[in-house]
């Protein structure tokens, strides 16, 4: 266990490093960029509103194209800012790995789900249940809270998995680890029969491949949880847009715009996901070159645990901070729920 205090030291050192990096990133070149993004978002949002209004009055193919273009651009820049979904995704990918294709899949799935959630909210609440748009916007806060809790749950789940992984990595004697990287239950069963061990070793040729498998396999449950916890949170702006488009009798316009927006968001998020995966792979290559696989296994476990803890912290702090976006219309009272006698005034 002499490793553990070194690990602690390493983690403490890294915390400092992260703080410095974050400070540099946020106070430096990002400033100008963020400002630029903000002004583009502002212009695109206005263009979007005006284009939909125009389309509802005088539809034309050119305006349609413009709407799709503007929505896509809006999605790209909307996602370029910071957001909890991206933080969760990047933390997950950095600490738990996953191939390039999976990173792309997760990014696009989460982005599309975000759009689909907004559409579903409007279809169910406004079209089916007859709520007014303001109430549907108010429901965004509830859905948002649920997604924050899901983030925390995801983190807990990742921590549990990391614990199992670490447990396995530390229980195996070093000599055997080098040749078999089975989970510890397996090892335990065969502990008294080294002969079996030997046979098994020959049979499945456990080596490099297996060393990657338990730590890095992106099992579908985790993938789905990640996608849902990120994608379940719709933007109240999208709900407002869909509601307004419905009122103009142009719901499909709104849907088209939201889908284009989600694709734009997916583009940005997947770029970020790719960067994360590349960074991780680079680090992994450096490790493998040291031919210290049991260390690699332990490192992967610690990394997974750190990632899990960061995600739990994200989820909890988001839940405690509460809504990140106003529920309902600015300037007006919080929308009352449908059950109350007067749904208009809070």
């Amino acid at each position: 266990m002499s490793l553990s205090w070194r690990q602690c030291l390493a983690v403490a050192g890294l915390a400092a490093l992260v703080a410095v990096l974050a400070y540099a990133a946020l106070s430096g070149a990002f400033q100008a960029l963020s400002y630029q993004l903000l002004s583009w978002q502002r212009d695109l949002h206005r263009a979007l509103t005006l284009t939909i209004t125009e389309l509802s009055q005088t539809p034309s193919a050119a305006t349609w194209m413009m709407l799709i273009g503007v929505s896509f651009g809006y999605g790209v820049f909307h996602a370029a800012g910071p957001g909890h979904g991206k933080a969760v995704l990047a933390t997950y990918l950095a600490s738990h790995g996953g191939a390039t294709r999976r990173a792309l899949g997760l990014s696009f799935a989460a982005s599309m789900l975000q759009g689909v959630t907004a559409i579903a909210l409007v279809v169910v609440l406004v079209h089916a249940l007859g709520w007014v748009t303001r109430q549907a916007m108010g429901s965004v806060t509830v859905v948002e809270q649920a997604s924050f809790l899901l983030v925390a749950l995801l983190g807990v789940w990742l921590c549990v998995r990391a614990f199992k992984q670490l447990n396995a990595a530390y229980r195996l004697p070093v000599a055997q680890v080098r040749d078999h990287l089975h989970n510890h239950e397996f090892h335990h069963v065969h502990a008294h029969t080294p002969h079996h061990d030997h046979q098994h070793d020959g049979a499945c040729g456990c080596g490099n491949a297996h060393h990657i498998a338990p730590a890095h396999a992106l099992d579908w449950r985790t993938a789905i949880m990640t996608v849902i916890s990120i994608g379940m949170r719709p933007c109240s702006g999208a709900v407002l847009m869909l509601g307004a488009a419905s009122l103009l009798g142009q719901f499909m316009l709104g849907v088209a715009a939201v889908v284009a927006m989600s694709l734009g968001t997916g583009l940005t998020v997947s770029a970020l996901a790719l960067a994360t995966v590349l960074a991780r792979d680079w680090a992994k290559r450096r490790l493998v070159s040291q031919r210290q696989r049991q260390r690699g296994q332990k490192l992967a476990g610690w990394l997974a645990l750190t990632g899990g803890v960061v995600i739990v912290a994200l989820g909890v702090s988001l839940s405690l901070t509460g809504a990140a976006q106003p529920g309902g219309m600015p300037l007006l009272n919080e929308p009352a729920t449908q059950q109350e006698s007067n749904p208009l005034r809070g």
Partner: protein
Amino acid sequence: MKSVTQNARTRWISRGLVLGVVGMLASALPSAALAHPHGWIDLSVEVITDADGNATALHQTWRMDPFYSLVVLEELSQGKEANLDEGLDQLGHEIRDNVAAQHYFTEVRLNGERQALGEVIDYTALARNGRLHFMFRLPLSEPQPLEESELTYQVFDPTYYLEVVHEAEDNNVSDDALTLRGERECSLSVEPADPDPELIMRAAMLDKNESGETGLGRHFAETGVVTCR
């Protein structure tokens, strides 16, 4: 021995790299407050003066953006109020009460000195060409002499969820966006916002509960300037 140090170093590098990326993203989180506007208000202001030429009030008209208007007006048409006018009255009360808590989004300065404002008593909400208008008279607590003075004001939503801009056509501020009622001869202009990226970042990083001279919206606020001889 060499390989051990090298290994340790590699571990540090790799872990630092990965966690650096993570930390960067995670720490960007507080600036989720870096919201961009999801709606806007077209603003026009009339500076009111009394018989002595003192500024007494700002008469403001807020023209809400098409989507906001659409959604709010739809709600009124479904409401229990007997007619639209009654609904609009209710809406006016509601908006007035909510903006009162935020000082009517308005800051007024005379020769650079912040002026105290009174409460809004005269206000009305109406629908015109599918846009919701909210009009109100915001009095200064004391009439202020404008002679050889410069009166400036800014109207903004601190959270920047709504953007407040003077009425404009093709990026040129309309003539009626800022007017003066009264005898006094003054020059009127609307200065565009000139945001400092550093201040914006600082504002965005602040917790939303922190008060003071903060808020993202401030940095994007246009300034109305009334200069009198």
